[in-house]
């Protein structure tokens, strides 16, 4: 697969992290690292440079995905940040700069489809497929595609 993405998974529920990892790898992408808290993300090396990060809102040690999103954007400005959460209502209107959200409970089809759409956009923006219903995009994603055009 020539448009394989490097993916970071930030999820404190280990079963879900394993599952997302499996779906990501089944779709032909690479999982660079998994993190369960803000602290874990902080400890990752600078040269990691992910294309995409799936970020849960509720994380270990009382940390939250909004802070993680800010940190990822600061450390790896090219990364797309997609929240994967059951707390869609807790996401502020500006998405804390993140690019979209996939609501839990997610389906295999929903994640797979979103991965294909995002990979398409990363390697040849804007994506040629329509946005899958499982992925709610933020204005930041539209801006990203528009800039790349």
């Amino acid at each position: 697969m020539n448009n394989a993405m490097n993916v970071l998974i930030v999820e404190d529920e280990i079963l879900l992290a394993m599952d997302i990892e499996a779906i990501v790898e089944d779709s032909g992408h690479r999982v660079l690292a998994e993190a369960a808290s803000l602290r874990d993300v902080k400890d990752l090396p600078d040269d990691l440079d992910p294309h995409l990060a799936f970020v849960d809102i509720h994380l270990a040690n009382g940390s939250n995905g909004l802070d993680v999103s800010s940190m990822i954007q600061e450390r790896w400005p090219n990364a797309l940040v997609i929240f994967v959460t059951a707390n869609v209502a807790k996401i502020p209107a500006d998405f804390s700069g993140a690019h979209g959200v996939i609501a839990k409970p997610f389906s295999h089809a929903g994640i797979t489809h979103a991965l294909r759409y995002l990979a398409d956009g990363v390697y040849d923006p804007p994506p040629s497929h329509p946005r899958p219903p499982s992925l709610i995009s933020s204005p930041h994603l539209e801006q990203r595609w528009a800039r790349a055009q």
Partner: protein
Amino acid sequence: MKQSDDWHLTDALHYDQGRGDPFAAAVRATRMPMVITDPAKFDNPIVFCNEAFQQLTGYDREEIIGRNCRFLQGPDTDEASISRVRVAIQSGHDVEADLLNYRKDGSTFWNALYLSPVRDESGIIRFFFASQMDVSERVLSQQAITDKKVMVEREVDRRTADLRAALEAKTLLLHEVDHRVKNNLTMIGSLLRLQVRTIDDPDVAAKLDSMLERVDALAVVHRQLYQSSDLARFDLGTFVHNLAIDVVGASGRTDIHLHLDTRQLYVDAAHASALGLILNEILTNAIKHAFDNGKSGHLSVVVDDQSSMGIISICDDGPGMPSTKRTRSIGTSLITRLARQARAEATWRDNAPGTCVTITFPRSETET
């Protein structure tokens, strides 16, 4: 103090003499308490009072004449009303006011005062004429009503607060339960997916995959339910639209052309899971059987909201599933049994080529 000479027309006049002046006699004899004051004199004193006024206040005429009317006021008389009367006198207007007044014996009564200036030909105020009326009963009953109203309002506020708190607790509980259902559904899906990966037998893996798709379909139903503000009904039209895109998209089959002719169509939320599972079976079956071995083709989903029943048709142009195989698959049995539960009906017909599955179901009667 002696009664003023100015008022010889009335007070100096006795009944015998008053015959010549029926107005003076009337003022004297009426049951309505009345006084007349003279603003030309220092402090605008009372220069005349009738019998009724003496009876009302308990003072004798000698005690009344020469005093300003304010001698009836006491510690609980309303300052604002007094100043309103004062302003009216100063500016020469008439005025009405309910004042709490005090009798000679210290008891109180509510006095409905009406005061008006009497002008001479050149427009100068010669007298003020004031009539009084004991309206204690009216004022007190009004106060009782006001007090009662305040009490009732306070009680209503208290109960409203109770209800609001109960509603908040219920909403919180609902969100908590919702959250747990979401987490559990997510975990069940993840567990199944992780298990599928360890299975080598393709037949078993395919069955587990079907199981997984069903759990996913339930998850999508639940997600759509909790994201909607409407708890009573479920938009099956939007659900089948999104599910079709998801299922075809996830299959990675770019050679299956999806035709969507969908619109919002509501069913009772109680039937959401059953109907959602039925649509999942039909769609996944179509992908697996109509277009297997990489055959390309067309898949159409039509939502018809034109009749009293809801109708959704899913048609493919694949080779069609032999009826013997259909009767043996768990998918078909699931569709038939779940349809019965949701008071729906599923029918298969030949699409020549391909298969059309149509489900007919009751629409939600809840209007929002």
